[in-house]
């Protein structure tokens, strides 16, 4: 049972770290992959060049980001939450810079899983050559020790 914080300075030092910037383009193929994955069919009507596309396309573009080094502190991990945010609609054919970032690490004592660490990472989509973020895909992973988990109840 962990009773002391594992959120050490070494672990905290990862907060804010970024991967190299990648480049992605909103293409009919990316929209097709996302649409067939989530909707089970191609997107209709297919957006023409310059027309707005549904936000689901970011799921197919995230793979253009470079990997992010995530500290492995505890033996088990679990996905806690996911989010897509958009400052504006993306458009067919536009090019975007994609970059992964470890946004935050926090800890929790007690609860269903015992002591746990929360890692929130983001992939930002920016207008090329600028810091203007147009979309963000984020997730929070929890690291915990299954041997210390109490079981029962929901995790908040």
């Amino acid at each position: 049972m962990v009773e002391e914080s594992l959120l050490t300075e070494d672990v905290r030092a990862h907060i804010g770290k970024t991967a190299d910037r990648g480049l992605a383009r909103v293409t009919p193929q990316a929209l097709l992959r996302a649409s067939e994955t989530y909707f089970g069919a191609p997107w209709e009507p297919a957006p023409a060049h310059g027309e707005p596309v549904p936000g689901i396309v970011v799921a197919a573009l995230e793979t253009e980001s470079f990997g992010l080094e995530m500290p492995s502190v505890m033996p088990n991990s679990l996905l806690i939450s996911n989010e897509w945010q958009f400052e504006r609609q993306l458009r067919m054919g536009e090019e975007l810079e994609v970059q992964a970032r470890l946004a935050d690490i926090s800890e929790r004592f007690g609860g269903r899983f015992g002591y746990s660490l929360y890692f929130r990472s983001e992939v930002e989509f920016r207008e090329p050559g600028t810091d203007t973020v147009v979309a963000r895909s984020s997730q929070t992973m929890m690291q915990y020790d299954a041997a210390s988990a109490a079981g029962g109840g929901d995790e908040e």
Partner: protein
Amino acid sequence: MSVDPATLQEGVELPPLEVAPGLGQVIRYCGMAWAFPPFFYDAEAARAMGMPGTIVPGPLKLGIVYRAVHEWLGDAGWIRQVRTAHRRPDRTGRPITVVGQVARVYEEDGARRADLELLIINEEQQPSVRAFAVVEFF
């Protein structure tokens, strides 16, 4: 269908969306995301990790919530945000239902927007996901 932002009120319910994400859909997700944890598609691997069988990836459920919101919204607007908090795993091939309602309708930055509160309910009628979305009307 499409909503009418002029008359939309808090408490309006979205039509439920029932789906049963199968192994094929999960594999499509893995290929798109280039993410291949074996417990998503290999029942033996899932059982070895203490799971009852393969499970639906959490990020796939984010997209399913997006779909439920889109099918309600139609061409009346666009989705600015969708967020899912995962409460319990959902087994591959089992029916799940997205339900939701309008929590708030408001003006912000010169646009008419609505906050939505949603749930994914499993076949035991337990919430497996709590979700939130923001839509902006044209």
